[in-house]
């Protein structure tokens, strides 16, 4: 292979690689975080009631809005995300909570409410009789970085 041809080939590979990398969707997107946070919150809320031996009721989530606090350009990428979740339980008063989610680059996070009383609240598990952290105050979550929830808009 001649030198100019080799150079052209290498340049072509570099351009193609740059195009592929630039055109890819971020693993962590607002769409994925909001969807997973809302569904996991709902499951963990029900889990909390079940572990306390109370009738299991799922919260009716009316709105979830999450933003990346470390990325000012768009809502993508790992870091510290704040999530506002609005819900109502069994026709009760509307609830509005702000949570923090520490998201890693692999699509998992640790989420906890900003209300420290709720965050560190412990309940007694009726099954194991152990004191456990209330899942309605903090939980872990993960999401599929290959799904089609690719929205990263800040709006």
């Amino acid at each position, binding site marked *: 292979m001649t030198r100019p041809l080799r150079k052209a080939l290498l340049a072509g590979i570099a351009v193609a690689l740059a195009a592929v990398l630039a055109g890819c969707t971020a693993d962590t997107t607002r769409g994925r975080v909001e969807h997973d946070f809302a569904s996991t919150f709902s499951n963990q809320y029900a889990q909390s009631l079940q572990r306390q031996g109370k009738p299991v009721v799922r919260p009716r989530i009316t709105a979830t809005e999450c933003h990346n606090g470390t990325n000012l350009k768009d809502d993508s990428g790992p870091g510290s995300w704040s999530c506002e979740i609005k819900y109502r339980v069994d026709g009760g008063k509307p609830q509005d909570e702000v949570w923090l989610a520490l998201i890693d*680059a692999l699509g998992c996070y640790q989420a906890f409410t900003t209300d420290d009383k709720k965050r560190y609240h412990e309940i007694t598990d009726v099954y*194991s009789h152990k004191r456990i952290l209330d899942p309605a105050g903090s939980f872990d979550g993960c999401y*599929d970085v290959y799904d089609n929830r690719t929205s990263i808009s800040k709006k």
Partner: protein
Amino acid sequence: MSEFAAVYRVESRKLLAQTRVRWVLGFLLVVPWIYIGLILHQDRLPLETLYGRYLKDTGYATPLAILVYASQWVLPLIAALIAGDIFSSEDQQGTLKTILTRSVGRNAVFWGKVAAAFTFTLLAVVTVAASATLAGIVTVGNDPLVDVGGTLRQPSAAAGLVAASWATVLLPTLAFGAIAMMVSILTRSSVLGVIVPVVLGLCMQLYTFLNAWDTVRHVLLGYTMSAWRGLLDSPSYLAPLARGLPVAAAYLVVATAIGFVAFRRRDVAGG
């Protein structure tokens, strides 16, 4: 007995006789018990680690929390310690010539050594997984596990998911072992055979946790090492595994092929 089986048996015996390998296996057997023992004797939980919050709730959180740490740097280290000098030690002791002039061919020597190194790497991973699961169940209890989707998994289902999660890191761990053997063949250095895969693993891990190009992260072994997380979600998702395992297989095949070609072409006349 075939040439391959003879080499495999001898290499396995040699590995088992090595103090370093015995120490690694013993360390992996004991560490999960120390880890959960320390956790149970402190008030705080490692909440920043996936499954750390459940360490005092269910025994099945122990192997998962340990898998989070192990997949970051322990497994590449294990693979490198076991496989990193299986070829280069022959160079250093000048025994390669002796082996190859005996009644076994180069192919049998290569594949016998590779198979023995892989067997012991798998044994090490199974040891730490089994020990961590046992340590969790014995010290914390056989209680249900809450997955990362917020669903309660009964002990039998949790045990299956723990086993499946550990099974997914076998291929990338073997890929690190293949890289270690390739480096040990190419450089004829045991030190580099052990250090290069570990440094490579750390670099991959560093990149994995950077907020950099995600596409690059997906083709690193560190990403495949963490793909098990989707198994324990509800609903579970397998896309990271489906994409990560072929990546690990590619590393394994390429590194083994390079090692094989280099070993076949090696001039051992000088001893």
